[in-house]
């Protein structure tokens, strides 16, 4: 899938690569909640710094690829911040002093600080997402959810099977495009291009559904839906690293939220 970013995988053994995905998910949600419950910008700043330190020291992910990975984020953060400031309800509060006046728009101090908090919130979410999903692959994630959280195994491994065949979709897309060109269906102009993409998408979905049906048949032929109790090939156990990760995430969130400036 050439348009998609290459999977970000850990390049070395690190603390977080030895934790279970379920534990990282809990730790990540703690930070997510901590960054969302307040409009004080100091909280997301502290969490973002903590996330970068963890990413650097304990994630095992190649730091050189992180900036490229997060590049699309910059624009979204900027616009979310600017619009949050411009449209803030605090700007209508006459008891607050005006910090800046842009045409009819009046900007107040609390509006600026809340806007920056909302923008940084997205930065924290993006960094935390890397920490949760970066250090292991989808297979570990499925193993972990089934064994630690008792997610129904048919759903977890059925999804994993779908993830495995997903890359074929890119090949389908190219083949369908070639077939359409062969039939003389070359789009000209933007409207035709959108229509063409729609047609290709439909054919691609049809071929995906067909492939999923064959896959399900093959899985059932091997007793996937037998209803028998399964044992696990790769055992996942909650270890001390998991508890330490969750405890540390809670501690950092508490510091970020409650320690005064």
């Amino acid at each position, binding site marked *: *899938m050439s*348009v*998609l*970013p290459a*999977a*970000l995988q850990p390049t070395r053994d690190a603390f977080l690569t030895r934790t279970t995905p379920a534990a990282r998910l809990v730790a*990540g*949600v703690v930070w*997510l909640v901590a960054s*969302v419950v307040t*409009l004080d910008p100091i909280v997301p700043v502290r969490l973002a710094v903590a996330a970068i330190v963890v990413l650097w020291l304990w994630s095992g992910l190649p730091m050189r690829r992180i900036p490229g*990975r997060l590049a*699309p*984020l910059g*624009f*979204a953060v900027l*616009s*979310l911040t600017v*619009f*949050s400031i411009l*449209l*803030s*309800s605090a700007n*209508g509060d006459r008891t607050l002093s005006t910090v800046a006046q842009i045409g009819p728009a009046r900007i107040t101090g609390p509006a600026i600080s*809340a*806007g920056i908090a*909302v923008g940084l*919130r*997205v930065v924290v*979410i*993006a960094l*935390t*997402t*890397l920490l*949760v999903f970066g250090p292991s692959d*989808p297979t570990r*994630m499925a193993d972990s959810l089934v064994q630690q959280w008792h997610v129904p195994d*048919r*759903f977890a491994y*059925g*999804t994993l*099977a*779908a*993830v495995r065949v*997903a890359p074929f*979709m890119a090949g389908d897309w190219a083949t369908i495009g070639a077939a359409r060109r062969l039939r003389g269906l070359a789009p000209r102009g933007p409207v035709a291009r959108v229509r063409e993409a729609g047609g290709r998408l*439909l054919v691609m*979905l*049809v071929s*995906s*559904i*067909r492939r*999923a*049906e064959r896959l*399900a*048949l093959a*899985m*059932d032929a091997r007793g*996937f*839906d037998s209803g028998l109790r399964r044992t696990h090939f790769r055992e996942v156990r909650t270890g001390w690293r998991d508890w330490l990760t969750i405890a540390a995430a809670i501690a950092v969130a508490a510091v970020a939220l409650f320690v005064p400036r």
Partner: protein
Amino acid sequence: MKALETTKPAAELLRWRTVDIVVVALLAVAFGVVFWAWGTYVWAWGSFLGPQTESLLTGVWLLPAVVCPMIVRRPGAALFGELVAAIISALLGSYWGLDTLLSGLLQGAGAEVVFLITMYRAWNPVVAVLAAAGAGIGEAIHDLIVNYPGLDDAGRAAIGAAEIVSAIVIVGIGGWLLVRALRRTGALQTFPSGG
């Protein structure tokens, strides 16, 4: 084949077969890729428009909540589809990542409630539009709390309304048309929606 399907007892129609799981998962994976691309290429640049107008683009993120259940007609398909799509976009590196799980849960639940009210029996365009609106409400609740907390009431109301309108048009009407187009190709014959 189809006569057999329709004469099955209701309980049998509520149980997920392997093919239901894999097809919903694969569709969700495809939508997860769309989520990531939409967030990276369209949403980021749409920011110029300001949050109220940009919210008209949000419907795309709700497609699995209606398309997946409309195809397999199993309870939980809205939630399952939205959650898998959210996880996939997080794995691909969508910067909303973890937060998508939260919003996916709310969006899926919003649509699921509507399908539950029909007892998973009515699958017409009206139900599709209502489920889309339900998903849109779930999304608006999430976004107003997480992304637009400081805005004035008029701004927040406009964003909420834009998200629900977007859901109804893109997901309710668009999603229903997509399922109909898929059905016409004959690809859904294994499912109750195929006939």
